């Protein structure tokens, strides 16, 4: 395995890796980073190697100096080369230390380091070749040299074996020339050095093995260190994440508590009674309004069954099947009028709104019951009904006498009366009639608004009804010196409508038109059919509807000019009633200005069947 060239994969930034979870050391180790670590170690130890080398070089020079002149020049040359290599290697170390991006390119620095190591090894090999065979060198010096070379080789082990092949280059550089010299050196036929030569490969093999083993130890050591570093880093990131999540949880808890307090405050101050009950209708919580309504304190009611405690035993509102169905359905329910029993045994009528509280999986957690006391509402309704009934029956009876008497007087059947008296009795009759109209209109409005109003639709001929209304209102119009006319011929149109109510609407529109027509003018009734809708129009030539009155003309008690009202009569309810009646018959009511002055009030009803369109 060649670590120097193993560049599998880019260096993965550890921060990006950390978030993805913890890895095993093998997975997370980055071979390039391990290589960079090993190169770093080589360079860290390099000054020791350079220093040691210089020391040994000095020793060798000193020991070999007494040799012959020719060898002395070679010696100086060798020392010079050695100094050059040492300087180059030291310069390399300085360069390496200064390079901030050294870890990003470990191969380059390793290459240069290896060249330095090889150069030094080869120069030691050169020493072996040059000095061992030199004639002036003694055998003792040769032994010394051999020992030095062996020491240098062994000394390279701790210095270079972070990358085993660097040591290999160095060791081969030293030992291969030395081995060659030992084999060829046989001055006296002695085999002593030849034996030594036999041991050199052995030494090389052992050293290489040791170097390779050391190399492995370094690799796994650095891998572990790196993995541990990553683990620590990941651990820190995880810790940070956990802390952040914890903070978020605390924040969420604070928010929930705050909104819980807000909700509690809402319930606390709400004028409506609020109870929380569980799926068995056991009361869990209640607000002060509930205490007031039922007359129990919270302490007395919590834990008790709401159905058994708050309802009469025979209450049909919430028997257990009804409750169970509600719990199973988990849909909001409103119990409109439910009789409840207070603590003091007094019955109160309440409206219950039950809202189930369900979790995400749809299971019922609890039920929020909002209870509205209807006692006052029902009492108000009863009073209103009583008042209406009084209006209807008790006021009509005396009015019958008043109007009847005055009518008899004014009819002249009782004999002629003084003109001034006749004027006054006529005023009295008109106003009594107005009072009666007002009562009738109020009763109508009340009936419509309370929803008790019932229409009796039948198939009627609208044109016949119009002609009838012309006859019925003739005498009223004559009072205002106004003629009633049908505009062109009325087409025959059947409609499905309440005859009496439709006549009421027509009478109202015609009498309004008559009231606001100039003396001698005419009220025109028209009828047109288009797109299955029949439009009935009542037109006058009056002053028109004032601009500021147009928007509220169909509102209750709406009258444009109260002075005019006193003069011409009317309750201000007529058009409001007409609008409601026509809308109840699926129609539409409105008004528009007439060409040539005056106003056209109209209502539209769906025609009973398709009728040929009429000309305008």
């Amino acid at each position: 395995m060649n670590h120097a060239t193993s560049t599998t994969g880019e260096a993965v930034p550890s921060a990006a890796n950390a978030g993805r979870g913890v890895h095993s050391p093998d997975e997370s180790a980055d071979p390039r980073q391990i290589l960079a670590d090993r190169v770093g170690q080589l360079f860290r130890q390099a000054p020791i190697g350079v220093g040691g080398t210089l020391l040994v070089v000095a020793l060798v020079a000193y020991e070999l100096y007494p040799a012959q002149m020719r060898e002395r020049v070679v010696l100086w040359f060798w020392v010079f080369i050695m100094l050059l290599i040492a300087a180059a290697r030291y310069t390399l170390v300085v360069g390496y230390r200064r390079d901030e991006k050294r870890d990003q390119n470990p191969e380059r620095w390793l290459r240069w380091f290896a060249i330095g190591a090889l150069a030094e090894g080869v120069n030691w090999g050169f020493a072996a070749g040059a000095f061992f065979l030199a004639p002036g060198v003694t055998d003792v010096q040769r032994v010394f040299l051999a020992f030095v070379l062996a020491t240098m080789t062994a000394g390279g082990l701790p210095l270079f074996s972070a990358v085993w092949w660097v040591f290999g280059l160095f060791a081969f550089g030293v030992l291969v020339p030395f081995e060659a010299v030992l084999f060829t050196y046989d001055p006296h036929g002695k085999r002593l050095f030849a034996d030594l030569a036999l041991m050199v490969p052995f030494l090389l093999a052992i050293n290489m093995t040791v170097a390779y083993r050391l190399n492995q130890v370094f690799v796994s050591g650095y891998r572990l260190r790196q993995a541990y570093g990553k683990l620590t880093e990941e651990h820190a990131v995880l810790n940070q994440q956990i802390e952040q999540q914890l903070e978020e949880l605390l924040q969420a808890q604070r928010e929930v508590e705050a909104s819980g307090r807000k909700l509690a405050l809402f319930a606390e101050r709400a004028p409506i009674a609020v109870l929380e009950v569980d799926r068995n209708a056991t009361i869990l919580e209640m607000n002060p309004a509930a205490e007031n309504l039922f007359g129990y304190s919270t302490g007395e009611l919590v834990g008790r069954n709401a159905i058994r405690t708050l309802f009469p035993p025979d209450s049909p509102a919430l028997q257990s099947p009804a409750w169970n169905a509600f719990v199973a359905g988990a849909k909001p329910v409103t119990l409109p009028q439910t009789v409840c029993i207070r603590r003091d045994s007094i019955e109160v009528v309440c409206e219950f709104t039950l809202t189930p509280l369900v979790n995400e999986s749809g299971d019922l957690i609890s039920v929020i019951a909002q209870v509205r006391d209807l006692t006052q509402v029902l009492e108000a309704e009863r009073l209103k009904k009583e008042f209406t009934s009084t209006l209807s029956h008790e006021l009509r009876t005396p009015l019958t006498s008043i109007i009847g008497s005055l009518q008899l007087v004014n009819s002249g059947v009782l004999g002629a009366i003084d003109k001034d008296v006749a004027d006054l009795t006529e005023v009295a009759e008109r106003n009594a009639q107005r009072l009666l109209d007002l009562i009738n209109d109020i009763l109508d409005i009340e009936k419509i608004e309370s929803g008790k109003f019932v229409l009796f639709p039948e198939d009627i001929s609208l044109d016949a009804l119009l002609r009838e209304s012309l006859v019925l209102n003739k005498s009223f119009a004559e009072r205002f010196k106004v003629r009633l006319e049908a505009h062109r011929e009325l087409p025959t149109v059947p409609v499905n409508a309440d005859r009496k109510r439709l006549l009421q609407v027509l009478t109202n529109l015609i009498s309004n038109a008559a009231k606001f027509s100039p003396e001698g003018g005419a009220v025109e009734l028209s009828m047109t059919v288009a797109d299955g809708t029949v439009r009935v129009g009542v037109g006058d030539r009056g002053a028109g509807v004032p601009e500021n009155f147009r928007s509220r003309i169909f509102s209750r008690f709406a009258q444009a000019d109260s002075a005019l009202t006193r003069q011409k009569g009317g309750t201000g309810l007529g058009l409001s009633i007409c609008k409601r009646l026509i809308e109840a018959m699926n129609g539409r009511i409105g008004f528009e200005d007439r060409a040539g002055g005056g106003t056209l009030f109209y209502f539209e009803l769906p025609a009973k069947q398709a009728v040929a369109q009429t000309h305008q």
Partner: protein
Amino acid sequence: MPAQPLNRICYVEDDADIQRIVRMSLEKIGKMTVEIVGDSTCAVEAIIAFKPDLVMLDWMMPVMDGPAVLRKMREHAETKNLPVVFITAKASQRELDELRAMGAAGIISKPFSPKNLPDQLRGIWHGLP
């Protein structure tokens, strides 16, 4: 449509003012013969004695109301087939339906017009079988 014109009317009504107005209206304008009964509890006896063409009943009366008088009339052979017209301030459709179901020949709502009352009664009279 009955052969003879409407002439004799018996009116059961507790309110004295209305009594006078109806009497004046029917006598002066309608030129009819009118018998007014103020106490509804002895109405049937008075009707039997007077032998009217048509009976007018007020609905709301103390002790015995109009419908009760009608039910009692149905129990007597002499009064059982007499046409009955109610005069009432009640106006709801349900109440009117109730009266028709009881066999009322007609209903005149209060307040009525004394000027038109004789014509209204004659209209009902002419509509009878």
